[in-house]
């Protein structure tokens, strides 16, 4: 699970990461960074200190959120799409308008699958500040 707060007044993004893959933040169509390094999933133990990340955001920045079905998406050779490949894909398309960016990311994931049926849901969301 991942939970976030976008504070438009202070221009900050705060994310609580509970075992969810690290989202990618793009800055004005340029710099892209994966946020966080993971965290313990919800419900494992009664008392967990969850990982929180806080970062500054600006108008035009985009936050790419996705399910693990994206990075764990396998091609017919059993290779995962992976977080590095996703980061590179985001870097490649982050300069496009929002709809095109999303369409191209989905295109890349589908191209990776080469027709292989996904084993898990593939969910992708991009939030533009």
């Amino acid at each position, binding site marked *: 699970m991942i939970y976030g707060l976008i504070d438009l007044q202070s221009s900050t993004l705060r994310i609580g990461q509970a*075992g969810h*893959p690290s989202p990618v933040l793009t800055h004005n169509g340029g710099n892209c960074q994966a946020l966080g*390094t*993971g965290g*313990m999933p919800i419900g494992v133990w009664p008392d967990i200190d969850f990982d929180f990340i806080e970062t500054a955001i600006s108008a035009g920045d985009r936050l790419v959120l996705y399910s693990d079905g994206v990075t*764990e998406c396998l091609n017919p050779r*059993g290779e995962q799409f992976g977080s590095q490949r996703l980061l590179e894909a985001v870097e490649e398309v982050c300069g496009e308008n929002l709809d095109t960016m999303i369409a191209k990311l989905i295109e890349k994931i589908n191209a990776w699958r080469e027709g292989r049926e996904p*084993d*898990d849901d593939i969910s992708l969301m991009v939030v533009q500040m």
Partner: protein
Amino acid sequence: MKFEEAKSGDILVLTVASDRVAAESTQSFKQGLAEYAAQGNDKIVLDLSRVSFVDSSGLGALISVLKLIGASGELVLCSTQPNVASMLKLTRMNKVFRIFGNRDEAIAALS
């Protein structure tokens, strides 16, 4: 889910004989491990050398068996492939399970 068994003293070494521990096999995976635990095996090395993929349900099954074994026993992991090691690190399971590079190290740690 099949496991290959080996014994080293009072330590049971189980090699997961599948390349995936995911939704379609989690139930049998959990059931199999639970049966070993119920037989009184409280020191278990789970060899994941053949497993290339574990999803969140597989992770849940591992945690469930760990809780079943309880504080008096040990369930440790060894020989994780890079994808699985990465997932265990992302979910901080490397802080919940002791994870060893190979079977010998795992057995030595439990001995």
